């Protein structure tokens, strides 16, 4: 099997465990890059960006109806505007972190967001979305068991999958089913009775008043014995999560999901899964798993190309150009988010609990139009002396974006554009940049 070059492998590490190379990142060697991304050090650059404040939900919106219909309508509109502004703040903050991030932590937070896909469309509470995001960040490279246990009682997740409606004597199966199907086991590895019994384990959780987090209320909990996944006992949420994770299918499922987004659309073979399961271990350690995953021969296979998701593409372009979304004027931030929405991917807005699609879904006619428009917009926010001052501008933009090289096709196309900013926007839409080779 042919292998990609060491420099291309460094670039691939930056693409897959980060949001693409920032200027200078491709000068580091493979080992140094691995240490930076997967080493124990915390991400000081991302941590320096404090989470936004003022995200509390608009007061008692819609709870008390104003008898004056017109006033009521105006109040609802004002509350809706406030929600939009809060979500924009939250999303911009996260994009900012992606752009400055130095370790794999931020990229894995992004992965877990797609894995435990929760949308503010239904949650309608930026504080809860932030809370979930911080939990996913906390455990991003840690033990999957900790993350799964936290997610099954996470406030935004409970709201998203109706967990607060699930109580003793009247179970609601939504969360229990998706937890097994999409988060831990995959379809075919549990029975309908496991869903019904699992729902009983998850009873007792209610949403706090006034935007406070979910809490456990013993009187709503079904404390009778349950039988599921081959075991009988008085399981609660933690017990349910533990049962799911100890199923033989769980490790392979989690490994497969990470592989699909970080390595290749071609699933790993049985021998690879076995090796990776060993690395994942009884502790379900994500950092160890990823370290083993990027050491696999498939990670150096030229065939292991992935179409960048829109958020990865935009964050990568911003990184390369050293443009921080948080420092842009509000109007420009809105354009960035509108562009991402047009391409079909806005953080905190996955289309369903199944997460975002992949591959060819990002190569549609409408996504293509928006990608070019957004690229043209983003280059206007950047200073690009490295391209402006270069004699060979086409080569300079390859270095700026960190692509391995341009094909003759792309070289010829780029040669037709003289303006450094337009050239950069166009290069960002080249197949060599749209796809992480």
């Amino acid at each position: 099997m042919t292998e990609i070059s060491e420099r291309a492998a460094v670039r691939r590490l930056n693409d897959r465990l980060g949001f693409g190379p920032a200027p200078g990142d491709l000068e580091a060697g493979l080992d140094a890059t691995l240490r930076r991304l997967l080493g124990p050090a915390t991400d000081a650059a991302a941590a320096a960006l404090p989470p936004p404040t003022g995200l509390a939900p608009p007061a008692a919106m819609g709870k008390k109806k104003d008898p004056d219909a017109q006033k009521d309508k105006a109040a609802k509109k004002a509350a809706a505007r406030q929600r939009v502004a809060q979500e924009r703040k939250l999303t911009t903050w996260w994009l900012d972190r992606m752009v400055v991030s130095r370790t794999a932590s931020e990229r894995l937070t992004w992965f877990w967001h797609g894995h435990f896909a929760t949308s503010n469309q239904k949650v309608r509470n930026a504080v809860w979305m932030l809370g979930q995001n911080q939990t996913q960040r906390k455990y991003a490279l840690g033990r999957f068991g900790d993350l799964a246990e936290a997610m099954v009682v996470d406030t935004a997740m409970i709201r998203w999958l109706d967990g607060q409606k699930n109580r003793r004597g009247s179970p609601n199966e939504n969360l229990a089913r998706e937890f097994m199907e999409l988060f831990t086991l995959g379809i075919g590895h549990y029975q309908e009775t496991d869903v019904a019994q699992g729902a009983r384990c998850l009873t007792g959780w209610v949403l706090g008043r006034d935007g406070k987090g979910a809490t456990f209320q013993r009187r709503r909990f079904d404390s009778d014995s349950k039988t599921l996944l081959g075991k009988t006992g008085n399981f609660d949420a933690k017990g349910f999560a533990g049962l799911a994770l100890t199923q033989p299918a769980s490790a392979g499922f989690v490994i497969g999901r990470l592989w699909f987004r970080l390595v290749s659309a071609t699933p790993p073979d049985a021998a690879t899964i076995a090796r990776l399961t060993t690395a994942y271990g009884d502790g379900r350690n994500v950092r160890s798993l990823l370290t083993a995953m990027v050491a696999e021969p498939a990670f150096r296979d030229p065939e292991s190309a992935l179409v960048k998701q829109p958020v990865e593409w935009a964050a990568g372009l911003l990184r390369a150009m050293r443009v921080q979304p948080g420092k842009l004027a509000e109007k420009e931030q809105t354009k960035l988010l509108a562009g991402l929405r047009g391409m079909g991917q806005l953080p905190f807005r996955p289309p369903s609990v199944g997460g975002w699609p992949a591959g060819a879904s990002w190569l549609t006619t409408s996504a293509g139009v928006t990608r070019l428009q957004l690229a043209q917009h983003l280059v206007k926010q950047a200073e690009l002396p490295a391209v402006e001052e270069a004699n060979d501008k086409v080569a300079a933009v390859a270095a700026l974006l960190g692509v391995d090289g341009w094909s003759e096709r792309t070289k010829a196309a780029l040669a037709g554009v003289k303006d450094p900013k337009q050239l950069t926007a166009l290069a960002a839409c080249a197949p060599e940049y749209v796809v992480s080779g």
Partner: protein
Amino acid sequence: MDNLTRRRFLTLSGVTATGALAVGATQVNWSDLMAAAVDDPLPSDESVLVVITLYGGNDGLNTVVPAGDPAYQKARPDLAYEQGDVLDLGDGLGLNPGMKGLKGLWDEKQLAIVRGVGYPEPDRSHFRSMAIWQTASPKSPVPTGWLGRWLDATGADPLRAVSVEPTLPPLLAGETTAAASLPLRGLALPKGALGTAYAALGKPSPGEGHWQARAAKAVQDLQEATKVLGAAVRTGHEQEDEEDEQRTQGASAGGTSQLGAQLELIAGLIEAGVPTRAYSASLGGFDTHADERGTQQRLLTELDGALTPFVQRLRKTDRGKNAVVLVYSEFGRRVHANGSDGTDHGTAGPVFVLGNKVSGGFFGEQPSLTDLSNGDLKPTTDFRDIYATVLRDVLGTDPTKILANHKTTIDGLLRV
């Protein structure tokens, strides 16, 4: 739509697929298409199929409501509609009060309701059950959609089927052909040197990897589409969703909104005589595990408000009179409410078939509310019976080739 717009539409080749498609498997030849637009418009007597997918699992029992059945009232004390609330259809059934327009179509015999539709050994996963409906393969997963296989079998022309949704649904992806996708908003690319250079990025590059080649092909498709389509299809019609709590309560299982805009676009295309035989549109939000009644009624009102003017508009033209609309969801919901004033994932549900060619009325048996299987309705009609009927009577194709030898049809559903 004038002839020019029709020709512009024909240039669309924004083809995507579920991943089963090889690079370049769908070669849409530009000049052939342009010629086809002029030489080969859809004959006005050829029928057209419009498939509308309701994502999330629409609660069939609160759509076509057995309000007079004591077992229904008992199973859903806080969720049930009273007999006086629903729009009476006879047989002890009534339409959800949000569907007043469809009641009118029912009275005009242009709405058929197939009851108790499902498949053996129902799967209660959204994603799996939707895949079963879209691939028409309940037993084993297959990589092709049922209309995708129809495309493969009838000349592999992607413009024979068109989706107006943001991403292509699996039902339209075949092994060698995927339907074209047409965005609701217009397309616009820069002109001048930048536009020329962008077009050049779409050229194939020898030795390029699979995904890079796909990305280049996408640029090429877009370039060609935009050149002639421009912003002509529609501008400014796409709007932000209204997102209040009730509308989004069942949103966790996907699907799109703006069904009205999707159907308006389709109506225009049908009337213009583009050579497309099958269209796909969708509406999401039906995953009503909690506080179902208000949310579902609102969604059904939205469906009614999009579907009724669509069917009324279609019957005003010769081409529209030959259109048949099929509305389905991946499953119905449990008979018993779940205690959150909602319902969990269930099995069988009603399928709506609408249009001028439809023989209005009930088809299929209403499932019993007392003879249940694990608390769920027992399906009385296989959904493939409906597919086979529309394949034969609308698309004029031998259904057995598309549906793995499935032969059963529903006699009298369509006037042939």
